[in-house]
């Protein structure tokens, strides 16, 4: 099997497993929706204020939702021994890990991107700002999955792994948050979002290259 075949096989398998447990997939999506809806209730319904906080709130909510789903990435496969079989297979583990991360993004990241414009409407964002929000999330959520995979692999089978993964990954998410929310803010204030989006894309490129590699190394340590 060539590399692409392996990748698509892993992605298809992980998607299938995710579809068999729909509630888990939907939980992080509903978490995103609920957190985003809580802020107006806590802060007040002034439209000017909501417009101002919308990029940050939506991005932070997306960040937390992406983090919540991280333990699903490797934990089940680790528990039933699938992960060990993957490590033993002749295919490079890094390739399989890349496939799993891609599947994780399709299940946990892409729905957030698709629902974000709807939540943006609640915050009275202009159509243009909504578009920038979607682009920034489209570039940002894969970054969250990639970085989060490192944390998930490091805390695999560790006591209190769920809380620990947030301590490890949230600081590393901060650049994505700054540039992602910054892009929408810059667009609203008329500065143009191109610079922020370019930096976000640069971070994504860097992560696509290095994160699967670091994740693989972390998994090998966990499986030793």
């Amino acid at each position: 099997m060539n590399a692409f075949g392996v990748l698509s096989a892993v992605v298809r398998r992980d998607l299938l497993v995710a579809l068999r447990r729909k509630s888990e997939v939907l939980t992080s999506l509903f978490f995103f929706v609920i957190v985003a809806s809580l802020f107006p209730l806590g802060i007040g319904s002034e439209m000017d204020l909501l417009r101002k906080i919308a990029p940050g709130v939506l991005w932070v909510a997306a960040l937390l939702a992406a983090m919540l789903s991280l333990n699903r990435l490797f934990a089940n496969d680790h528990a039933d021994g699938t992960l060990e079989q993957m490590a033993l297979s002749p295919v490079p583990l890094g390739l399989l890990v890349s496939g799993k991360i891609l599947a994780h993004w399709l299940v946990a990241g892409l729905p957030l991107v698709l629902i974000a414009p709807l939540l943006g409407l609640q915050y009275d964002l202009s159509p243009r700002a909504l578009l920038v929000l979607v682009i920034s999330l489209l570039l940002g959520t894969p970054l969250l999955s990639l970085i989060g995979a490192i944390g998930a692999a490091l805390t695999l089978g560790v006591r209190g792994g769920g809380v620990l993964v947030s301590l490890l990954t949230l600081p590393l998410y901060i650049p994505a948050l700054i540039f992602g929310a910054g892009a929408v803010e810059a667009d609203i204030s008329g500065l143009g979002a191109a610079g922020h989006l370019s930096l976000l894309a640069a971070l994504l490129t860097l992560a696509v290259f290095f994160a699967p590699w670091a994740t693989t190394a972390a998994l090998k340590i966990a499986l030793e």
Partner: protein
Amino acid sequence: MSVITWKYASPQYFYPLAGKMIPWFSLLAVIFGAAGLWLGFFVAPTDAQQGEGYRIIFIHVGASWMSMFLYLVMAFWAGIGLSFNTRLSSMMATALAPTGAMFAFLSLWTGALWGKPMWGTWWVWDARLTSELILFFLYLGFIALQAAIDEPRRADKAGAILALVGVVNVPIIYFSVKWWNTLHQGASVSLTQAPSMAKTMLLGMLMMALCFWMYSVAVALMRVRAIMLERERHSEWVANLREVQP
């Protein structure tokens, strides 16, 4: 030469060496600290704009430098431990983390104390403050991850990967001033331009930085000795040590 130096990669030989080095580094820390504090409080002139309040710079700048530098040193030893599978390197990384976290905290704290009279606020969401805070979180993450894993070798390796991933953050801290360009004053000391401050101030700052450096070495050596004893407690050389005899 090489035989002599490589020998000290073994805990058995490094333990007594570290014990001999600790008093010297402690002494250096006291000397540099006394000189730096004397320069800072009695010799350095009062700043024209900031009055006497600026004198916290002597602690603040050194602590910030050390917090970033120690992270690099920690990541370096962790990386060496990961790639060459040397136990002592990983122990050194573990020993450095709490000191680095302490300096990051000290830098944030003194920064807040300095910011109140100068900017009128304890905290601003400026790029460098925020990056220092992230660095503090990275230290905490490293310490928490190592504490959560029972098996020492796995803790070493997992921590090493986290440190190497986090090391990407340290250059971002340094260049963030240029990237985001906000309220924080530019770097006080620059290698390319003539320093914009009085010579005595610069000297005082360097003395304090050296004091922190020597202190870090002494404390890290003390901690690494404790870690060596703990991990090698079943080995013969530990049993033969004079200090563990009943």
